[in-house]
């Protein structure tokens, strides 16, 4: 979601890590709340490593024709480079497709059990 504060728009994503911790990402900066140390609450922050590569479209394409048998990501989810995205079964092989980029899954263009052609775009990241 986007939050506007004094004309500045922040891209915010909130997710629950477990029962006690919440992860909030604000413009690619990651905050984790809820890790209790004694009476104090520790807030840890890290930067997610999302490279700015605006020159290339972040599309994951089928390296070979086949059938999508399993999809491991959901729209809106952040993925890392080399993260397992889906399984593409070609007639003779099962191919675990991993991401060439880090980014947020903008669009999943295929469904499980769908046949795809070589070079067909499967997933778009932002």
């Amino acid at each position, binding site marked *: 979601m986007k939050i506007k504060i004094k004309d500045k728009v922040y891209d915010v994503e909130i997710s629950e890590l477990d029962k006690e911790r919440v992860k909030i990402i604000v413009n690619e900066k990651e905050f984790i709340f809820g890790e209790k140390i004694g009476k104090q609450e520790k807030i840890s922050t890290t930067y997610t490593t999302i490279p700015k590569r605006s020159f290339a479209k972040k599309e994951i394409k089928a390296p070979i024709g086949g059938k999508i048998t399993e999809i491991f990501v959901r729209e809106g989810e952040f993925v890392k480079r080399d993260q397992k995205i889906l399984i593409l079964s070609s007639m*003779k092989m*099962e191919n675990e497709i991993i991401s060439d980029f880090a980014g947020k899954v903008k669009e999943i263009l295929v469904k499980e059990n769908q046949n795809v052609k070589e070079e067909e775009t499967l997933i778009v990241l932002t």
Partner: protein
Amino acid sequence: MLKSKIRNFKTLFSTNQKAKELALGLSPSWTVIVAEKQTGGYGRKGAAWFSPGGGLYFSIILPKSQIEDLQTLTILAAFITAKTIKENFNLEPFIKLPNDVWINGKKIAGILTENIVRPTSGGHPDVKLSIMGIGLNTNIDKFPKELENIATSLKIELGREVDNKKILSQIIEGLKEQLKTISQ
């Protein structure tokens, strides 16, 4: 020719899984993982592969290759397995494409290649890892009821035991030869 390193295990969940794990841990190509039995052997789409003691179950860490070559090699693996059976035992195997070998209308071997591929924008896909698993029903006496009409073994067909080690090395050498021809 590159030597293959054979690693023998008594029991594995799956030789393909072990091979993947070892390949990610940088075990060299042509490392061969052999298990006397598998507790979770699987074929394409996760279908179970009956893997009791007596059968030949192995996975090979393949050298870095183009995805198209891996596809060709997988088809060739079925031919090599069939050829090994035919030449050693004078049986008439039948190749059920894409990757099974049958004898007398029943399945005797299956092949599953698994790759980890990173499609790159504009370039050739980067194949990070490839393993090929082969399950061959060699010295299996009997199949469970639900499989006995669809699966067979060399022992059932021949009425005698066969040498798993010899068959293994023939198939590996055959694959090496083929990969040399297709990837150069």
